């Protein structure tokens, strides 16, 4: 069930030997250290780790938003060096455009391709329906709840029809119940579209609920600690949370993460003590 092997030949997304270092006033910090893995077509892979393990740095590297790193990222054999149309990103923070209606938000990537207005509105309505927001087409993000806005962001990214959907803790700011229900929605869409998905998260339940495989990362420097195959039946929904097998996976991943999270907490405390000592 647990495999340290990180790369597969049939992967559509390949992340090879990524190393990211940041210069800080305290010296160089290695945020991500020699991370390699692959995501197969139609697969749902989650990357999980404690705060400070370099998950979001990895998200930025794969999405092409961070340029200064060693290693390589390729999609369907093509090496990418920056934002790429094959990768659609959904961000942790609320990222809808408040000056655009739901339809105009979702139609945004279609507008960039020069698609005629009538056609892009029709396509946008299709994706709005897909995320369950039909009836809200003419509303503005300010009139929607946090969960609905994240669905608008998801629909906007799906409208660009990316080969890989890359999500960075998209439900982090939502309450637990909304998070579970949105998880269902994402699962349903992923299964319907056979969408290759890479989810960055620190939420074990969310990762087990949705993933085919979970990549567990170590605390700083972020390395691949283990890859866990999730052999739960599909199609899945949030009801699976109550099953015994689900509980076993959660316990197993928590056992891996606990040590890393403790290291992170100790590190944070040491750092805070150091700062207090310096200031007193």
């Amino acid at each position, binding site marked *: 069930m647990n495999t340290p092997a990180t790369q597969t030949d049939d992967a559509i997304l390949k992340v090879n030997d990524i190393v990211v270092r940041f210069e800080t006033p305290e010296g160089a910090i290695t945020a991500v250290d020699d991370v390699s893995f692959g995501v197969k077509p139609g697969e749902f892979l989650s990357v999980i780790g404690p705060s400070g393990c370099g998950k979001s740095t990895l998200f930025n590297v794969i999405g*092409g938003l961070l340029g200064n790193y060693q290693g390589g990222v390729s999609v369907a054999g093509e090496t990418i060096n920056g934002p790429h149309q094959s990768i659609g990103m959904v961000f942790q923070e609320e*990222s809808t*455009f408040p*000056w655009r209606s739901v339809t105009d938000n979702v139609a*945004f990537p279609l507008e960039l391709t020069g698609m005629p207005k009538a056609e892009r509105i029709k396509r946008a309505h299709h994706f709005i329906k897909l995320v*369950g927001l039909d009836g809200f087409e003419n509303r503005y993000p300010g009139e929607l709840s946090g969960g609905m806005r994240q669905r608008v962001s998801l629909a906007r990214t799906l409208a*660009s029809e990316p080969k890989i959907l890359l999500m960075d803790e998209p439900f982090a700011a939502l309450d637990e119940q909304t998070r579970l229900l949105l998880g269902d*929605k994402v699962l349903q869409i992923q299964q319907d579209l056979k969408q290759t998905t890479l989810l960055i998260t620190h939420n074990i339940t969310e990762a087990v609920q949705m993933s085919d495989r979970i990549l567990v990362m170590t605390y700083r420097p972020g390395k691949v600690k283990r890859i866990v195959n999730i052999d739960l039946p599909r199609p899945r929904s949030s009801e699976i949370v109550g099953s015994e097998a689900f509980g076993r996976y959660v316990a197993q991943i928590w056992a891996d993460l606990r040590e890393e999270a403790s290291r992170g907490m100790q590190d944070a405390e040491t750092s805070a003590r150091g700062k207090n000592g310096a200031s007193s």
Partner: protein
Amino acid sequence: MTMAAASAPAKRRKPGDVLPAVVGLGSLVGFFLLLELLIQTGVLNRFIIPPPSEIIASFPRIIVEEHVLSRFVLTLTECLTAGVMLTVFGVAGGVLMHRFKLLQEACETWVAAMASAPIVLCYPLFLVIFGRSAWTIIMMGFVSALPPVILKTIEGISGTRKVLVNVGRSFNLTQSQQFWKILFPASLPTIFVGIRLGLIFALINVVGVEFLINFGGLGQLINELAERYDLAGTYAAICFVILVSVLFFMAVEKAERWLTRAN
């Protein structure tokens, strides 16, 4: 998971909705009635503050004899011209300063200092450059109102949430698309704060310079009426300046609502 359609019913105006407007108008009328009473009873000197009834009575006179409407149009035109110029050049200046960091680092402090400087004192210089014409007045209004528009434009663009910029980057936008589709609409509410401030500065300077150089408009009329010691007429003319201000800001508010209707 289909959600119920959310078509909001048309909002009906409740009787309570007009209450603030009624109270506002009522307090204004109450203030003028109190003023009238204090002046008529001799508590306030009528040779310093004319009674509101006299000011109202002087309206037909200043409309017919002093051609207040043509002066009103002149002042309004000067304000609008200065307003359009400061919007165009102020926003463009702010965008340029944000785009070229060296320019911003070199000039931002000077622009901020200019915002609090009494530029109106430079009116003799503007008279030499533009002559005794409406352009001197427009340019005085424009120059003195430029700094807040520039500063707020820089603030608005710099304050655009990073995640929105990253969304643009993730869709591989060009620099021009990034500006027009994300940075500019995201910063519009802040830019409008600058434009509103700029328009206040412009209006004060336009009327002030009309007054100073004695060239047309409501400022000159106020100057003439004050020199004739026609206090009721002076205050009636001031009411027209307030009317210019109200019309001016109603137009800006309309434009702001239209451009930032969802922000």
